[in-house]
């Protein structure tokens, strides 16, 4: 190769800067049989990065249950695909954009939304819903406020513009996220199940086509590389934060879907992390073919870009496709109509190698099989999280009324309306249940009765205290939230956010969470069909709480059967499930008693399934007017949320003898639902008949929530307390 100016010698030192260990670099030398070029080293380093290779997590991910009769494509494709009936498939996935969102909250979150949208429409689906799962640090920090503001604006800015409704999500606060917020974005799309597009390239001599935005120098090598180390030209090579362009994404969605209605596409993949490198390597690798790229043909936004820069750029809104040669003109015309770049940048070969040419030089020539097969795979040591000592008796320091006021006003339970109000949740005209209207968002399929129920869930404080129980709980809660609307849960996507896997305790959290998740997936017939792993989420040695965020999808044959959580007057309230009064790791314990202790509530998966199937049956038989699962904050918080949701009060009865009042009303025992029904006797009888625990806990009506001790609480006052936190925090002038 001709020497180029400003190029560093490739050696072990540079490999180290690129994130490759000495052992990994030795493997590169062995595969290549020579010293690799800078571009080749770049390709190896990104393909073997944790993000692309899953080298620390793969051995554990393989143990997750991924199969069911309704699963069309499980993990391994751009997104998971499940059969939802009527000839349709739902395609969905969740993905993290944690680190960029800390550096530049608006663009980090916005490009996170853009990336996950592409993973879904690249498979032929029209995106119909976005959700998210967000974790932020201590609200007392000014930095947290800035990050929340930017992330919410970024999610709205991108999602609103592309015209995909943002229908659900969750937000937690905890100091462990102070230096490392989590931004997990999920997209759900719908496709004809016989027209799913995959990424495996095929057809010797077929053209490799680049469409979308031009390539710039943004996002090169992500954050793994210090730009200054490149010397005098550091300004030229500094990786900049990627900038999203939702307008181009919208054009790309429409153009791709228009092209997908023809028979022109052989294979297609978006250019996400590691851009042109990962898309070309994965497409050729999966298809068992070779690929030759001519970078002179790549549409470029900046001048004098090198092969290394183009191969590693993470410029947004770009796709790579393999087309039938005789359909090239059809495809070109569609992209020209949408004013998008369209360029033939390569060809499929039979060499089994990726060959990259630029300005007459061969910049890279790597055998694809060894690049994939010899990718590092680590069985990292694990250490179990010690079991927490039982909590023992905890006295009630304040009584029910004061505790309820504290809980519904705390950042983890305060109304999220300030956030939802910035997301367009109705575009598309199919949103049956908007954010806050039901336990899961309900989005109808246009022109049909069929609807999807969608949710994101995880309780990181449970996972931290007991990773296995917490992993199971995250899956169970997603299943429960879908069930509470009347929908049948079908499958999940997971976003595994953990700290440094090289620490045995962290790797142990990961392994145990996977064990718990797997058990729940099996017990609930709720397989994992896609996912994403984000490791090294720690700042200055402080790890985040382990956060395996779960995105759940369920289906309703008739959208009209979906029920929400808001109370109407004149109904009986029935609690389904067993209440022992579990206060360990509860929000009551943290917010009212000031302790973060004890084991989290255990999840009895058999009872979970049993109770949930009973509740869904009652809903589909038309016996239930509103339903809400009991989760953070316990039973009294659940009832309060139902009262506020329907602007209708309730009169509560004392709980059973044998459980202290505060433990009964604020314990976080799992597998429970509150049902608002016309006929409690009928529902209780049906429950007794099948052996599901159920008791009547009160009635609905009036403008007050009357506690079991007779204390009346005005709904207006409860609403003010619940709605105070976000607007007050965000509108406060000066530093928080």
């Amino acid at each position, binding site marked *: 190769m001709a020497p180029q100016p400003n190029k560093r010698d490739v050696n072990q030192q540079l490999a180290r800067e690129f994130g490759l260990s000495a052992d990994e670099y030795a493997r590169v030398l062995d595969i290549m049989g020579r010293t690799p070029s800078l571009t080749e080293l770049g390709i190896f380093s990104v393909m073997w990065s944790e993000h692309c290779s899953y080298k620390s997590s793969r051995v554990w991910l393989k143990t997750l249950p991924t199969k069911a009769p309704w699963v069309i494509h499980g993990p391994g494709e751009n997104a998971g695909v499940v059969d939802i009936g009527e000839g349709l498939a739902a395609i969905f996935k969740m993905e993290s954009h944690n680190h960029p969102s800390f550096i530049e909250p608006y663009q980090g979150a916005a490009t996170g939304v853009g990336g996950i949208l592409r993973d879904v429409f690249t498979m032929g689906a029209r995106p119909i819903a976005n959700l998210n799962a967000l974790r932020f640090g201590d609200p007392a920090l000014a930095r947290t406020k800035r990050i929340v503001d930017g992330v919410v604006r970024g999610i709205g800015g991108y999602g609103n513009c592309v015209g995909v409704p943002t229908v659900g999500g969750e937000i937690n606060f905890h100091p462990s996220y102070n230096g490392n917020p989590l931004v997990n974005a999920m997209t759900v799309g719908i496709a004809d199940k016989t027209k799913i597009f995959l990424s495996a390239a095929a057809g010797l001599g077929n053209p490799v086509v680049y469409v979308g935005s031009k390539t710039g120098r943004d996002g090169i090598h992500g954050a793994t590389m210090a730009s200054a180390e490149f010397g005098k030209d550091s300004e030229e090579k500094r990786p900049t934060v990627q900038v999203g362009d939702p307008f181009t994404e919208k054009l790309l969605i429409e153009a791709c879907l228009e092209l997908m209605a023809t028979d022109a596409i052989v294979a297609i993949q978006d250019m996400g992390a590691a851009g042109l490198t990962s898309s070309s390597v994965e497409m050729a690798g999966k298809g068992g073919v070779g690929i030759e790229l001519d970078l002179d043909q790549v549409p470029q936004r900046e001048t004098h870009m090198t092969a290394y820069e183009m191969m590693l750029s993470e410029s947004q809104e770009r796709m790579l496709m393999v087309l039938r040669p005789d359909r090239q003109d059809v495809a070109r015309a569609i992209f020209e109509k949408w004013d998008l770049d369209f360029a033939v940048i390569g060809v499929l070969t039979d060499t089994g190698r990726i060959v990259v040419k630029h300005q007459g030089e061969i910049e890279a020539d790597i055998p694809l099989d060894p690049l994939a097969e010899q990718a590092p795979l680590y069985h990292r040591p694990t250490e179990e999280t010690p079991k927490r000592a039982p909590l023992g008796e905890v006295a009630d320091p304040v009584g029910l009324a004061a505790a309820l006021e504290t809980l519904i006003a705390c950042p983890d339970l305060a109304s999220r309306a300030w956030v939802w109000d*910035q997301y367009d949740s*109705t575009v598309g*005209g199919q949103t049956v249940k908007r954010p806050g209207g039901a336990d899961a968002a309900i989005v109808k399929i246009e022109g049909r009765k069929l609807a999807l129920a969608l949710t994101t869930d995880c309780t990181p404080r449970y996972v931290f205290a007991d990773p296995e129980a917490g992993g199971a709980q995250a899956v169970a809660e997603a299943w429960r939230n879908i069930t509470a609307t009347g929908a049948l849960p079908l499958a999940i996507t997971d976003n595994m956010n953990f700290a440094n896997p090289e620490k045995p305790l962290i790797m142990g959290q990961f392994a145990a969470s996977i064990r718990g998740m797997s058990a729940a997936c099996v017990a609930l017939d709720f397989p994992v069909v896609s996912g994403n792993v984000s490791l090294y989420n720690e700042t200055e040695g402080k790890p985040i709480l382990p956060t395996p965020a779960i995105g759940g999808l369920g289906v309703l044959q008739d959208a*009209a059967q979906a029920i929400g959580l808001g109370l109407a007057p004149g109904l009986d309230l029935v609690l389904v499930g067993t209440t022992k009064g579990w206060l360990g790791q509860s929000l009551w314990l943290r917010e009212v008693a000031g302790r973060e202790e004890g084991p989290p509530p255990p999840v009895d998966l058999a009872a979970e399934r049993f109770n949930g199937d009973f509740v869904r049956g009652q809903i589909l038989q038309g016996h239930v007017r509103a339903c809400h699962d009991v989760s953070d904050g316990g039973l009294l918080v659940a009832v309060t949320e139902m009262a506020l949701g329907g602007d209708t009060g309730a009169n509560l009865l004392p709980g059973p003898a044998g459980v202290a009042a505060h433990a009964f009303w604020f314990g976080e025992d799992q597998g429970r639902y509150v049902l608002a029904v016309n006929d409690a006797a009928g529902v209780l009888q049906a429950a007794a008949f099948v052996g599901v625990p159920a008791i009547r806990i009160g009635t609905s009506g009036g403008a007050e929530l009357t506690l079991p001790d007779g204390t009346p609480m005005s709904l207006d006052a409860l609403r003010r307390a619940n709605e105070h936190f976000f607007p007050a925090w965000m509108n406060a002038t000066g530093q928080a």
Partner: protein
Amino acid sequence: MKAAIVVFPGINRERDMAIALETCSGQKPRMVWHKETDLSGLDLVVIPGGFSYGDYLRCGAMAAQSPVMGAIRAHAARGGHILGVCNGFQILTEAGLLPGALLRNAGLRFLSMDCHLRVERADTAFTGHYQTGAVFRSPMAHGDGNYFADDGTLDRLEGENRVAFRYVTPAGETTAAANRNGSARNIAGIYSENLRVLGLMPHPEDLVDPLMGGTDGKPLFDGLVAALAA
């Protein structure tokens, strides 16, 4: 009623609008790409919501220069009816077919929620199925919906009874709290001089099906069908 929906690059509520029109008229509207230049033979031209050209430069500014705008002006000059919703309203003001401008929301944040609208007159093709003074609920979703015009223009709009809808409380009062985006005089929608061009920010087209939470927006489309049916 022969209706068409104009699609600019970045428009994203064209399908919502098509569903509303088809629900109320029984006919699928014609979808018109922004490079088309012939809109003859139509009763109603709709410019739907979205982010034409990404809202870059200024909301609606680039769409207002699109090839189809000549045909839209000709349709207006012929006395044809035009409905512009959200971005469509912004495009109509940028094109000079309606007075005033839509500024960034007063709170500087995107607003997605239901609002309540008061019908200021019920004798137009758009409002024949409402009563004057009636209040209806409608979703809204915009970052730039803060209606602005100079006092002379506002006085003239009011004097000529060209305010179509105002943001009000559910009881019909024009309070500041009901006017979330800060629009001048709570104005949510206005008419052209001949009352045949209507621009409004909220999305009645997203509330025409009880499954989606109500049918408050349906009378607007039912009224159009009744007024414009051949």
